[in-house]
């Protein structure tokens, strides 16, 4: 392609707070329509907004996590437009003076790190939802979401491909989750993204005309919508046409974008400073306090896992996928300081069980200390590695105590010579031909005997001891 792709993203993430941004209503999801409302978020005459400081705190946290400069003086503004889901006829947002600016996020492109500029982060309130389905000749409005706090993060037009855009989104999502600012769940609509996209001839310093694409509600659709849009714009340019500045909607069914409104039809939002709220002053002390609570971010943690625990990059990427998972791993390593073995168990058995049940790590019925203790039992020879799988499953399912499972289920390894010897004698008596064969030099038959003894002992025989005893007895 002789064009360079230029993409900038605007991401709206729902801020994790108990109550809405300007009133005391709950932010709980999935409640009956309009049950989470009050005169303020319903936009009754005479009501006034009162800023929830928790939202500011979360905004500052996100700003710090993306290396932004936090504004000492920020101001809310009104964005004016009419829509039934917008009770006041304006959205309280920020315009000229956002909360945070001039930051960046690092993404990996072809194994190299690339900095993507974060232009600004600002706070705003969400709108409600219009309901049309199942209603005859009318539409209803659910305002439970109205006033739910959002952070809008605007990137610089630094992204050069759909893949980079998705990598950036995933990275941003990871930071949101890590910092506890948002659960950034795209399915719940807690993490929404609009893209500005344009093409320019390679080497051209000027940006081309951009289109804004909306309504992409999964990473996959972002990728597809951007791919479609690139192809569409390329075709226009190739045919000597001009890209129109407009807003386009992604349609999942057809896999295409459609024009929603042109530049001429674009809203004039008539932004002006919100007179019902005083300007927000953020002092350095507050910023420092929040900075002190900032967790180690994914990038730093990943690097530390590779260097401190000597685990492969691949393991580190998975284990730092969420803070809770990373915490689990570290706690388990504390109990059993062989990181690679812990990593194998966490990434293999534990994540498999959780995935089967669609559970998150913080819902795991196993504590990291239990996993550590179990691994120690293997080392001590109390249980075999094979039995450990059963023990693990049992622990996961019943949540019962490790020692108890091992004792009650009789899973303790049989290392006792007389007990083992008895089983070996039985096996030898039942297989005289093989005994003769072994004694005649077919030493490979040792494996056969090990298998038979294991089978009879229900897998509980201590393999080391078994080998030793078998050889003794077979040699006669």
């Amino acid at each position, binding site marked *: 392609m002789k064009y360079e792709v230029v993409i900038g993203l605007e991401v709206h993430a729902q801020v994790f707070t108990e109550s809405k941004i300007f009133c005391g209503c709950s932010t709980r999801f999935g409640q009956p329509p309009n049950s989470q409302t009050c*005169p303020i978020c*319903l*936009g*009754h*005459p*005479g*009501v*006034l*907004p*009162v*800023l929830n400081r928790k939202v500011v705190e979360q905004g500052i946290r996100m700003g710090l996590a993306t290396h932004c400069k936090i504004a000492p003086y920020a101001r809310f503004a*009104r964005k*004016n437009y*009419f829509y*039934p889901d917008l*009770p*006041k*006829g*304006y959205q309280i947002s920020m315009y000229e003076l956002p909360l945070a600016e001039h930051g960046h996020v690092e993404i990996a492109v072809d194994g190299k790190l690339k900095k993507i500029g974060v232009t600004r982060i600002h706070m705003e309130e969400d709108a409600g939802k219009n309901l049309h389905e199942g209603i005859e000749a009318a539409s209803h*409005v659910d305002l439970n979401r109205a006033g739910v706090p959002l952070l809008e993060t605007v990137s610089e037009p630094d992204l050069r491909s759909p893949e980079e855009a998705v990598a950036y989104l995933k990275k941003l999502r990871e930071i949101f989750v890590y910092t506890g600012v948002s659960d950034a769940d795209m399915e719940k609509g807690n993490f929404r993204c609009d893209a500005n996209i344009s093409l320019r001839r390679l080497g051209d310093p000027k940006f081309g005309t951009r289109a804004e694409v909306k309504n992409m509600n999964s990473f996959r659709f972002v990728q597809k919508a951007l791919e479609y849009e690139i192809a569409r714009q390329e075709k226009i340019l190739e045919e000597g046409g001009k890209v129109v500045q407009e807003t386009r909607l992604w349609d999942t069914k057809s896999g295409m974008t459609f024009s929603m409104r042109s530049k001429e039809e674009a809203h*004039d939002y*008539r*932004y*002006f400073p919100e*007179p*019902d*709220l*005083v300007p927000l002053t953020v002092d350095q002390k507050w910023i420092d306090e929040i900075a002190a609570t900032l967790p180690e971010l994914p990038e730093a943690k990943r690097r530390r896992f590779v260097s401190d625990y000597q685990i492969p990059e691949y393991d580190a990427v998975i284990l730092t996928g969420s803070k809770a998972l990373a915490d689990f791993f570290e706690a388990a390593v504390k109990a059993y300081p062989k990181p690679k073995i812990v990593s194998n168990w966490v990434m293999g058995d534990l994540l498999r069980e959780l995935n089967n049940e669609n559970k998150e790590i913080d819902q795991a019925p196993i504590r990291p200390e239990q996993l550590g203790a179990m691994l120690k039992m293997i080392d001590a020879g109390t249980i075999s590695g094979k039995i450990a799988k059963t023990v693990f499953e049992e622990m996961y399912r019943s949540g019962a105590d490790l020692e108890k499972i091992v004792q009650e289920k009789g899973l303790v390894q049989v290392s006792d010579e007389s007990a083992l010897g008895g089983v070996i004698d039985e096996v030898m008596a039942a297989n005289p031909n093989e005994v003769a064969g072994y004694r005649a030099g077919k030493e490979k038959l040792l494996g056969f005997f090990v298998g038979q003894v294991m089978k009879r002992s229900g897998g509980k025989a201590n393999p080391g001891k078994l080998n030793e005893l078998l050889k003794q007895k077979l040699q006669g």
Partner: protein
Amino acid sequence: MSWVELTAHELHEALKKKSVSAKELVNAFYARIESVEKGVRAYNTLTQKEALAQADRIDRAIARGETIGPLAGIPIALKDNLCIEGIRTTCSSKILDNYRPPYDATVVSHLKKAGAVFLGKTNMDEFAMGSSTENSAFEKTKNPWDLSRIPGGSSGGSAAAVAASEAAAALGSDTGGSIRQPAACCGVVGLKPTYGRVSRYGLVAFASSLDQIGPLTKDVTDTATLMNVIGGYDPSDSTSADLPMPDLTRALTRDVRGVRLGVPKEYFIEGMDPEVEASIGQAIETLKKLGAEVKEISLPHTEYAVATYYILATAEASSNLARYDGVRYGYRTPQARDLLEMYMKSRSEGFGPEVKRRIMLGTYALSSGYYDAYYKKAQQVRTLIKRDFDEAFKTVDVIVTPTAPTAAFRFGEKTADPLQMYLSDIFTISVNLAGIPAISLPGGFTKDGLPIGLQILGRAFDEERVLRVAYTYEQAAEFHKRRPSLS
């Protein structure tokens, strides 16, 4: 003198002495309303049932021997842009004709707690936009001193109700003079407190950065008493000031000795009614005789105040009034084929012409391409106007001006020319832009017997000095004792 003609503090004494019961007062006021309301038309809604229930509570408290506060059992009127839970609140607009708020305004909660009795909701210019109450979608409120004249506005109903003794006191709201100018027209006392002194929570917004609730009363003492109850910090209003509320009745000492009085030369303009000018001149002389020092001062940006105000106030209003869209409450057109038509018809049928004019003006001022030239510039001029006052208050303690350039005019006199109407607020508007407190009190009468308003402006949050000067003048001049002859 009948009960209804007394001030709130006089009624309080009578209630304490049990010379009258709260119920008797309520009945006396409703009887008065019954007899004069046909002429005055001060009220949009009467709340007799609730008023009697509240009076009954107060009477029982008195019977139990409880000490009652200064507003307990006092019959009060509320401008129809203040929300009372469950009581029709219209802003004198068709668009809110049947609106009943689900909550109480902060001032309403304070007054309820203080035991005040609400007689009803008073007429106003629609959404407080106007200076004559002629912009009401309902009735024309008349001036009790001359029923062929306007009561001023936008709190015309509240001012007329107090002047006509249809309420002991009232609350109004003041965005550009809407308490002070009707107070002047109706010969009562009206205070626009410092911006942030009284919570705006539950006041239906016109222009958020300018609106303030304040009292309209028969004398300065009642104003101080009401302010003590409605003033103070409110966490529900982020723009309310987190400052302790002083007891303003304690500021009411008859003493202006050494008080430096500023007279702005820009306020004595051509076209001012000579009777108004003479009265204010005399009032200044009176204060001088009482010991005040008089100084001429300059407020150089005065001439830009009206233009600045009409950009900022309309810009904010255009946004504040967007919520009246027919979706959740208020008027919705009975016939609309789609959403856009529902919006357009509901709003064009629901709003009156002045409100539409201001929404259009404000929308224009905020439009992209015009924002810098209008809204932004107006904000800059607002800062200059504020600075004028800061400078002036370095050399004087209060500023004295007329409240309005003329006494109450006749109905229809200025409705044809909105600009003429806007100029009625020429002396009151700067105060809102600067956010400072100002009071209007009776400062004389014209030959025809119409009241003339004297305005006293003070430093931000210095209501005490404003009230002290006003009180001292009031007690010396005694214009507040005159009552219109109705009936």
